[in-house]
C-alpha cells in the first residue's frame, strides 16, 4: 500500500512513456510498414521522458508559485493580526489566479530611453535559472529528474546566471533607482554565493559525491522512522544548515537581505521599470528561486525525501520545503532590512570565516572514530564544542562594533 503511493508518479510516468512509444509504433506501422526500430523506440522513450519532466516541473512548481504567493500574503496577514486575501475563491485560494489575470491584462510600459533588447531579455534570463535549478533535486524515491553526478555544482552554476539577469534588468531600464538596485543585487549575490557553496561543502565531504541522489541516500536509514540519518542532527550539519538558510535568503533576495528591491529606499530596485507580465516573471523567478533553494536545503541537510513511512517520500520532500518557505516568510514579516555595507561586511567577515571553520569541524568529525555509540557521542561533543566556540568568537567580533547597550537618564 505504502509503495503504491510512494511510487505513484514513477508508475504514472512509465505508463505514459509506454503509451507514447505504443502510439509511435502504431504510427510507424501505418506509414512505413513495420514498428519502429529498437534505437528509434529508445529515442522516443527518452524524448517523452524529458518532455514529461519539463511539463511536470513547470506545472507543479508554477502551481506552487501561486500557492506560495497566497501562503505569503496569508501568513504575513496573520502575523499582522489581519485576515489576508479571503474574497477570491474559498479562503482566497484563487487570489493568485486573479493576480495572474491582472498581470496579463496590465499594460506593459517600456521606458523610452530604455535599452530595448536588454530590457526585454532580462525577465526571460532571470526565470530560466530559477526553473533549471529544479532539474537537479530528487523529489522522491527514484523520482530524480536528472541523475547528474555533478548536481550540486550544477545547481550553483545555474543559480549564478540570475545575477547577470538582475544586472541587465537594472541597467536596461535606464533609471537611477534601478541602477542602484542592480549594483546592489550583483554585489550581494556574488558575496553570498561563496558562503552558500561553502555551506554545502561539508555535506559533499562526508558523502564523497556531488550527486544529490547519493547525498540523499547517505542520509537514509532503512528503519521505519527514517529520521536518524539526517545530516542536520550532526553539529557541523546544523551549523551548515543555518549558514545555508542565511545564504539562501540572501541569494533569493528575501527579507533581511532584500536590498536589491528595497521598497522603502529605492522603490523597487531593479524591477522598477517593469509592469504587466514582465513584472510577474520577476516575481515568479524570486519565488521559484526561493523554493529551489529550500529544495536544496532539504536535500543537503534534512534528508531529502527520507521520513517516517507514514507519508510517501515525495510528500516528505514537499512538506520540508514548505516548512523552509514558511520560515522565510516568517523572517520577512519580522526583520528590518540590512544596509548594503553591513550586508557585505556580514557576508565576508562573519559568514565566510564561520563556513571555513565549519569545514574544518567536519574534517575533525570525519576522522574521529565513530564505531561504538560512546565514540560517536564523543565525536559529536567535540565537533559541537568546535562549532559553538567559533560561533561565540565570531558573534563577539561582530557585536563588538555594535557598541554598548544604552542607558537613558531622566531630567531632574
Amino acid at each position, binding site marked *: 500500500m505504502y509503495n503504491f503511493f510512494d511510487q505513484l508518479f514513477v508508475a504514472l510516468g512509465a505508463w505514459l512513456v509506454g503509451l507514447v512509444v505504443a502510439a509511435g509504433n502504431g504510427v510507424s506501422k501505418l506509414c512505413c510498414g513495420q514498428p519502429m526500430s529498437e534505437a528509434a523506440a529508445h529515442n522516443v522513450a527518452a524524448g517523452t521522458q524529458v518532455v514529461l519532466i519539463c511539463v511536470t516541473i513547470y506545472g507543479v512548481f508554477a502551481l506552487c508559485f501561486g500557492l506560495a504567493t497566497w501562503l505569503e500574503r496569508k501568513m504575513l496577514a496573520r502575523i499582522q493580526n489581519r485576515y489576508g486575501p479571503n474574497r477570491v475563491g474559498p479562503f482566497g485560494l484563487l487570489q493568485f489566479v486573479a493576480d495572474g489575470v491582472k498581470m496579463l491584462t496590465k499594460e506593459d510600459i517600456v521606458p523610452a530611453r530604455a*535599452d530595448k*533588447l*536588454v530590457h526585454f531579455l532580462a525577465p526571460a534570463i532571470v526565470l530560466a535559472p530559477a526553473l533549471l535549478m529544479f532539474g537537479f533535486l530528487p523529489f522522491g524515491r527514484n523520482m530524480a529528474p536528472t541523475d*547528474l*553526478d*555533478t548536481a550540486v*555544482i*550544477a545547481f*550553483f*552554476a*545555474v543559480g*549564478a*546566471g540570475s*545575477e*547577470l539577469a538582475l*544586472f*541587465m534588468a537594472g*541597467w536596461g531600464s535606464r533609471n537611477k533607482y534601478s541602477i542602484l538596485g542592480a549594483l546592489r543585487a*550583483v554585489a550581494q549575490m*556574488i558575496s553570498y*554565493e561563496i558562503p552558500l557553496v561553502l555551506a554545502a561543502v561539508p555535506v559533499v565531504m562526508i558523502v*564523497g*559525491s*556531488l550527486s544529490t541522489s547519493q547525498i540523499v541516500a547517505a542520509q537514509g536509514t532503512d528503519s521505519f522512522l527514517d529520521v536518524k540519518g539526517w545530516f542536520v542532527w550532526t553539529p557541523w550539519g546544523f551549523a551548515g544548515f543555518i549558514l545555508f538558510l542565511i545564504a539562501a535568503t540572501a541569494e533569493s533576495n528575501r527579507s533581511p537581505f532584500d536590498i536589491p528591491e528595497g521598497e522603502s529606499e529605492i522603490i523597487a530596485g531593479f524591477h522598477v521599470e517593469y509592469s504587466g507580465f514582465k513584472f510577474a516573471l520577476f516575481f515568479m523567478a524570486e519565488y521559484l528561486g526561493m523554493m529551489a533553494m529550500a529544495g536544496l536545503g532539504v536535500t543537503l541537510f534534512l534528508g531529502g525525501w527520507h521520513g517516517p513511512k507514514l507519508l510517501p517520500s515525495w510528500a516528505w520532500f514537499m512538506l520540508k520545503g514548505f516548512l523552509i518557505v514558511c520560515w522565510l516568510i516568517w523572517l520577512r514579516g519580522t526583520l528590518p532590512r540590512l544596509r548594503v555595507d553591513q550586508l557585505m561586511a556580514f557576508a565576508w567577515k562573519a559568514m565566510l570565516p564561520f563556513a571555513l571553520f565549519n569545514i574544518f569541524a567536519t574534517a575533525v568529525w570525519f576522522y574521529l572514530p565513530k564505531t561504538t555509540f560512546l565514540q560517536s557521542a564523543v565525536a559529536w561533543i567535540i565537533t559541537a564544542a568546535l562549532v559553538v566556540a567559533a560561533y561565540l568568537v565570531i558573534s563577539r567580533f561582530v557585536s563588538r562594533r555594535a557598541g554598548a547597550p544604552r542607558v537613558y537618564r531622566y531630567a531632574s
Partner: protein
Amino acid sequence: MDTAFIILSLITVAGAVWAVTLRNLIHAVLSLVLFFFGIAGFFFYLNADFVGWVQILVYVGAVAILAIFAVMLTHNLTAEDEPGFFSLRWLTGMAIAATVGAVLWFAIRSNAAMSQTAPAGVASNVADIGRKMMTDWVVPFEVVSLLLTAAMIGAIVIAMEQISHRK
C-alpha cells in the same frame, strides 16, 4: 560533424564576433557571456560535466560581472569614434589573429593525441579529478591557491587605499 557540434560552434562564434563588433559595450559583454555558454556547451559535448559546470559558475557567474563592472567604469559606453573597416587598427588586428590561428592549427595537426575524438560514454570523472588534484597535481594546485590569495590580498589593499582616500 553532427548537428550538436554545429549548433554549439555557431553559438560560440556568433558570441565571439558580436563581442568584438557590437557598438554598445554592454551588449558586447552580454554576447561575451553567450560565448562562455558556448564553451561550456563544448565541455558537456565532451562529457566533461564537472568542467562544464565550473566553467559556467566561474565565467558566467563572476568574470562576466567583472567585465561589466569594468565597462561601467569607462565613460562612453557607445563607442562613437568607430574607425573605418580597413583602417590601420583593423589590419594589425587581423594580422595578429591570423598568426595566432596558424600556430594553433599547426600544433593541433602535428599532435596525434589531440586528433582522435573523445571516448563516448566514459563514466563521470569528478572523483578522478578530485583524486588527481590531490595526488599528482598537488604542487600546481597549491601554487595556484597561493596566487589567488595574493591576488585577493592585492585587491583588498587597493580597496583599502580607495576607502582611505575617500574618508
